[in-house]
């Protein structure tokens, strides 16, 4: 369909203030945080800002009737190109639809629209002594809709799991404009095994099945206390072994993070005053709960991990906890600054491997960095085997770009070889789609078949996930 006609129709439908269609404005929607869109930005045909289910329905019906692609978008903080109209199409920027519809504290749940910011939701929930536990690093800017689309998790997934565990039901506009409600049309219950679990199918489907317009989330009671232990290791293998020791001691920390020696160097180069000890690895354990249980678990971690670690420190005092955690909290930033004329790139950044193979994986990534002559900073959520690799290159040097793309491919293959996955939490989007067969075999085709049921025309965020 002609671009001008699309523009005209959308303006008629939504009003001028809810449509962007000038070429210049559309360029701003050609990127997210992925390296892919840094290399190949791709503008949509139009951007719309719906703020009601009806508006989303109208847009979808129009797209369906005219065979135009539609791409939902949250805050555009993803690392996979998932919200980019890589084949043109209409982008639905849902980030302005940020209403918290209802905090149903007696039923431990909350209903939100997709544009609510994660940190904002938890701020509101804290008034009821509740929280939504998944804690992505982008809490201040990412939307709940984006978290649902990508089944996001983050620092506390080790104890609290991923977004999918908290989604009780969704309202979804299908690509033909129809609306469905998953998790029960009228349900407000927490447990529900009635019917096929379409909620779980939708969560993590990266917008290829429909547009999520309403989210019913389960909340948890906010823990009263927390503590942090920092353990320093001379042998890399001791770090994952210590994680296992902690689990076997019957403790499930709320977070277990690793900085390997590359990340330790990066942090110390960026902020020398933090002065992390030189080591093969540093682990940070966070426990939360009631004060006596936090103290008990802290002392047990100290005892168990202390057998392998060169040193271990336990803190519950907020200032010291912040100091201990600071190294981890600035790692992603520090990685970007280890080379003055370079930047980190979000590519091959999210592999997930079995716990027992974390050390081998880190060694193999280091070897790949040496092979390609690329500095790579490694850190991540070791508690669930999710390793974040940050290659640091000059993204404007074609030679370096070529090398890093080859290295990233090898990192993805490595993850699969290690019996892991190419992505633990950031998603597939446009950047990891090529591994679908390798990761899922026959099931990949079945996934495509499922998409066709929802989206027979293939207009819903095409070129992503599968």
């Amino acid at each position, binding site marked *: 369909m002609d671009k001008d006609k699309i523009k005209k129709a959308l303006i008629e439908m939504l009003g001028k203030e809810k449509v*962007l269609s*000038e070429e*210049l*404005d559309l*360029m*701003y*929607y050609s*990127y*997210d*945080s992925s390296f892919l*869109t*840094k290399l190949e*930005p791709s503008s949509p045909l139009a*951007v719309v*800002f719906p703020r009601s289910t009806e508006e989303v329905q109208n847009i979808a019906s129009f797209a369906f009737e005219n065979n135009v692609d539609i791409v939902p978008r949250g*805050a*555009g*903080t993803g690392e996979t190109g998932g919200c980019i109209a890589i084949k043109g199409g209409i982008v639905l*920027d849902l*980030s*302005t639809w940020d209403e918290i519809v209802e905090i149903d504290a007696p039923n431990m749940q909350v209903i939100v629209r997709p544009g609510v*910011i994660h*940190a904002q939701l938890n701020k509101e929930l804290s008034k009821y002594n509740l929280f939504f536990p998944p804690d992505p690093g*982008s809490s*201040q*800017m*990412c939307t709940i809709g984006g978290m649902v689309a990508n089944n996001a998790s983050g620092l506390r997934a080790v104890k609290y799991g991923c977004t999918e565990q908290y989604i009780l039901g969704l309202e979804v506009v299908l690509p033909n404009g129809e609306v469905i409600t998953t998790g029960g049309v009228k349900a407000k219950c927490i447990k529900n095994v009635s019917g096929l679990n379409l909620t779980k199918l939708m969560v993590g489907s990266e917008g290829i099945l429909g547009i999520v317009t309403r989210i019913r989330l389960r909340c948890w009671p906010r823990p009263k206390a927390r503590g942090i232990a920092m353990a320093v290791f001379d042998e890399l293998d001791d770090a994952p072994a210590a994680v296992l020791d902690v689990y076997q001691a019957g403790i499930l920390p709320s977070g277990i993070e690793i900085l390997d020696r590359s990340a330790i160097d990066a942090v110390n180069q960026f902020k020398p005053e933090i002065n992390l000890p030189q080591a093969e690895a540093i682990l940070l354990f966070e426990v939360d709960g009631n004060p006596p249980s936090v103290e008990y678990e802290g002392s047990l971690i100290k005892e168990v991990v202390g057998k392998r670690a060169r040193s271990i420190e336990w803190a519950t005092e907020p200032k010291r906890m912040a100091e201990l955690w600071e190294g981890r909290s600035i790692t*992603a*930033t520090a990685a*970007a*600054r280890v080379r*003055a*004329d*370079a*930047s*980190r*790139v*979000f590519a091959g950044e999210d592999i997930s491997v079995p716990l027992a193979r974390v050390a081998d994986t880190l060694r193999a990534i280091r070897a790949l960095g040496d092979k390609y002559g690329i500095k790579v900073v490694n850190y991540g959520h070791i508690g669930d085997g999710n390793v974040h690799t940050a290659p640091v290159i*000059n*993204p*404007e040097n074609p030679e370096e770009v070529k090398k890093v793309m080859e290295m990233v491919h090898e990192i993805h293959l490595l993850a699969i070889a290690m019996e892991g996955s190419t992505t633990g939490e950031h998603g597939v989007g446009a950047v990891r789609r090529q591994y679908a067969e390798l990761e899922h075999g026959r099931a990949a085709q079945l996934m495509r078949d499922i998409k066709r049921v929802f989206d027979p025309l293939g207009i819903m965020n095409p070129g992503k996930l599968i």
Partner: protein
Amino acid sequence: MEFHKLPPVKDQIMKCVRCGKCRSVCPVFAEIRNETAAPRGHVFMVQMLRDGKVEPNNDVNERLSNCLMCENCSVNCPSGIDIHELNAAARSYIYDKNPSLSKELIFDSLWTRPGLLKASSKFMWGAQKSGLQSLARHLGLTSILPGDLSKAEKILASVPRQSARSFLPEYNPARGEKKYRIAYFLGCGTDLLNPQVARATVDVLTHYGCEVIIPRDMKCCGLPHIANGKMDTARKLAVHNIKIFNNGDYDYIVTDCASCSSALSSKNMEFLLGGLKIEDEAIAFSQKVMDLTQFLMEKLELKLPGKEVDDRIKVTYHDPCHLANAQGIKKAPRELLKQIPEVEYIEMGEANRCCGGSGTYSLTHYDLSMRILDKKMDSAMETAAAVIATCCPSCMMQLRHGVQRHKWNATVMHPVELLSQSLKQTPAKK
């Protein structure tokens, strides 16, 4: 220096990973709420300009100019990008390709000549006092002003009759034992719109043993020029001021204006004059520049004697972006206020959120600026303070407009005015 060769353009654009952190801290994005207003969007657009993917035209400038230059994105950028500098560089590049007569008149002919600027403010005062402004409003004549100026002329209410320069002598001797020889950088906003602040500054500095010189031939700090794409003029002004101030044997160059101290800071000097012959001289100059509150607290180690005061004034404080973000100065003005016996200090929520003034921004983007101001006023009014203190004439102008707009019975003052008043009630120091 050529746009493409400017250090932020050359070195920093590639560092943006578009993480979106800047979206969460940008006051303009909070209002416009689409990616064209996101700071990372500005970085992207500057990249497009650099790479020749978009033309340096007024359409691009219009989008870049939505930025307040409050620097909140720059201080919060995980990749350490000076986003505001990129934006300023791009505006200048675009301006050079699309010069405008009105901007030449305002920023080159008027705003580089203190005498003419003073004459204009005198004219404004005359128009206000004679009722000409009211008449013009009444007759709808103000509506013919370009862009947002027809609405924004309200912000310029109550221009004082006399500028500070017209009543403050060039040389102001220290009272008591002389401690420092100070050059007072009297910015345009203080000089023309807040002369009472200038008087208080001189009173306080001389009270504490500073010999204060107000060089007659100093010119604007250049910040309005940077914000409006006139970087070349800003450079010329900086070079002029460096020569003037480096010729005097001053211990420090003190200013009560946050925008001036940020424009004269070494960071901004590097941006403007980096790589030029004058760079070393510029850095030497900027190392002497200090914000007044910081100078009072850190160099003069101000300690006011405590005294019993029956009715203390409730005072809250608004962080000017050019002080808190550009220079990291947050503690000194608060400590100063808390020391004043007559002051009961109340911190407002989100004190470091921009007021939307930002120099000429409220004049060029009136409606947007008012939306940002209204949020600031909500936070300020919650304190029920009688005084909003702040260290920037642009913020003062904007907050005064906010007070009027919300029909709130509060006064906007510089902390030094409160200090000066307090000292007048305290026996002079021997």
